[in-house]
């Protein structure tokens, strides 16, 4: 579509996630370039902590979300550049300037964005934990409570310690059942035959009388089949040890979350965590936190899949904000929005290059950030009652509102408090549809045409623009539904 002009600045980003030379032409090109002085750099990240280690999350969020187009003039400019690009006048030489998080610190920042850590815990304590994490995990002593005046800090430390301990305990449990776990190897053929008996008794360590255990064992080859097909273009996965790390994390997650189990697509979500965080337990918890947001999408039954609930929200949003387009899609028998299925399941991973997805995700998680997620997750683990997520915006000061991402802030300020808030991803799909509005209305004569038109976003979608548009749609939707 666009002429050559490869390279540019985007290669700088790709250097962090090297692509096998023979696959370079095979993957979507990275379009975002970290902009020196605008990204959240390592230096700025460290400067965002107070002396004792409290993280100024508002400052971090501000920088991550900085790429979002604010002014009208800026929007016009972006629009113009976009038009010039699609009309072929402007060759794709200049990469889009990204803000986001610098690749060298993505992993640690994600841990905060996803709620693995409380921004209110201290730096020193986290350091201590990290140190002990790499040596002996089980023997970590709890800090002396009298030394800290912050009870939430203690909660945080206990939780982190317990979390790490938990991962290793779970992994050991898995290992006892199937001894391939944790060996740096993995399997791709079924461990259980048609007759319900193990195909290779030497791999199975316990009698498989428990139904849940049996179910888990039956899933492991599927995980393996997907691991060998995950981001194979990246040099990282040329190593069997790294593939096995992804397999281990997914296997332990499946062991833990037997309610949902393993569903294809989870590998796409987990892969970046395995790459960005060296410590396997850290990768696991980052993935686990990401799944808290997404796991309902993966719930399957004989007649439906969980993601269909997000699809019906999407339908609701489109009906509200753009009835004409919705009607058109409905006429084409696309009113169920099934064509957006994959975008929601793997959070646009198939639409963007690896590096661009990372940028999109941290932008999304930054926008969705709620400073209470850490304690919410911890509470919902220890209490049977799920913690109340919504706070009333009126009780929050302007300062504390800044600790919320832009998207979450709008939920608090405009949305109904009793309303279950929809994921940003759903609004993002809506924004993609809006960006393609004219073409869909004019050219789509069937749902297959819609799929084709949306397929083009692989090479043309601007994540920042889509996120800005998503915020606009959210505002419109919340305002309209509140009135009604």
């Amino acid at each position: 579509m666009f002429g050559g002009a490869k390279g540019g600045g985007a290669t700088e980003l790709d250097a962090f996630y090297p692509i096998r030379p023979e696959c370079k032409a095979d993957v979507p090109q990275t379009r975002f370039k970290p902009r020196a002085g605008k990204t959240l750099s390592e230096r700025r990240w460290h400067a965002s902590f107070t002396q004792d280690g409290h993280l100024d999350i508002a400052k971090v969020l501000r920088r991550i979300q900085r790429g979002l187009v604010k002014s009208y003039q800026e929007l016009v400019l972006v629009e113009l550049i976009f038009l010039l690009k699609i009309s072929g006048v402007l060759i794709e030489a200049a990469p889009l300037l990204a803000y986001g998080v610098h690749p060298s610190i993505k992993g640690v920042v994600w841990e905060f964005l996803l709620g693995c850590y409380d921004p209110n815990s201290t730096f020193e304590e986290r350091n201590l934990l990290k140190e002990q994490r790499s040596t002996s995990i089980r023997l970590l002593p709890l800090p002396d409570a009298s030394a800290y005046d912050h009870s939430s800090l203690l909660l945080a430390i206990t939780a982190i310690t317990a979390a790490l301990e938990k991962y290793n305990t779970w992994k050991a449990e898995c290992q006892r059942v199937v001894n391939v776990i944790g060996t740096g190897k993995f399997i791709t053929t079924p461990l259980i035959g048609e007759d319900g008996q193990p195909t290779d008794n030497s791999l199975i360590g316990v009698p498989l009388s428990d139904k849940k255990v049996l179910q888990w064992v039956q899933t492991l080859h599927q995980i393996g089949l997907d691991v060998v097909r995950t981001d194979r273009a990246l040099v990282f996965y040329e190593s069997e040890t790294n593939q096995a790390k992804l397999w281990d994390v997914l296997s332990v997650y499946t062991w833990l979350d037997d309610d949902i189990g393993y569903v294809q697509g989870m590998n796409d979500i987990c892969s970046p965590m395995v790459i960005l965080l060296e410590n396997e337990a850290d990768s696991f918890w980052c993935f686990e936190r990401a799944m808290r947001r997404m796991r309902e999408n993966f719930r399957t039954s004989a007649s439906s899949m969980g993601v269909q609930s997000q699809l019906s929200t999407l339908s609701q949003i489109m009906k509200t904000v753009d009835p004409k387009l919705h009607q058109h899609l409905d006429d084409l028998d696309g009113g169920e929005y099934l064509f957006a299925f994959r975008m929601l399941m793997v959070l646009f991973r198939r639409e963007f290059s690896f590096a661009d997805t990372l940028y999109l995700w941290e932008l999304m998680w930054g926008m969705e950030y709620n400073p209470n997620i850490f304690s919410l997750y911890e509470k919902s683990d220890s209490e049977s009652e799920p913690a109340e997520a919504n706070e009333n915006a009126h009780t929050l000061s302007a300062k504390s509102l800044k600790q919320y991402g832009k998207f979450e802030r709008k939920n608090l300020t405009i949305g109904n408090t009793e309303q279950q808030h929809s994921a940003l991803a759903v609004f993002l799909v809506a924004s993609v549809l809006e960006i393609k509005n004219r073409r869909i209305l004019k050219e789509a004569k069937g749902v297959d045409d819609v799929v084709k038109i949306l397929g083009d976003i692989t090479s043309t979608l601007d994540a920042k623009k889509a996120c800005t548009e998503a915020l606009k749609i959210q505002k419109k939707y919340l305002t309209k539904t509140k009135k009604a």
Partner: protein
Amino acid sequence: MARRPDDEYDYLFKVVLIGDSGVGKSNLLSRFTRNEFCLESKSTIGVEFATRTLEVEGRTIKAQIWDTAGQERYRAITSAYYRGALGALLVYDVTKPTTFENVSRWLKELRDHADANIVIMLIGNKTDLKHLRAVATEDAQSYAEKEGLSFIETSALEATNVEKAFHTILAEIYRIISKKSLSSGEPAPASVKEGKTITVGGPEPTKKACCTS
């Protein structure tokens, strides 16, 4: 004959690709529609589709092929696509016996959810992996005969029999459609495109330079 644009055709046939995870469904499709094979291909999430317009028995047929996720957990979504499909390519991997053993389950799936007179073709893929073959051609052949399916072995990697497989099933669908309209005395439907289709996911990016062709 002048090359027709993609949207000019006599018939539109919807065909589904089904079978266990990792047997090579997506690569059979990319080999057929774009003459490409990708060693780094990713697992299919939900349903994806591709089309190719070709001449079959002197008619222009637009084949709309729906590629499905192999994992059983996706069945609720994928089986929705069986409706209105005139053909099904049921794929197994000749190097993996369990994928062949599961063929009967897939047949049951089709009988439960697809139109009764859907044309089914059994495909044993990955014949290029000669040293790993674990399912004998004769076994699959006799199974297909018993179940009344047509059968072919393919290699998407080496492009062996892929054209033939798709041509055979499209020709068979065409024969059934034209026979039907003869016996009913009605003209053949101009196209089957009015059939309701549901769409999931988008087509993969089309230009894949590292893919062998």
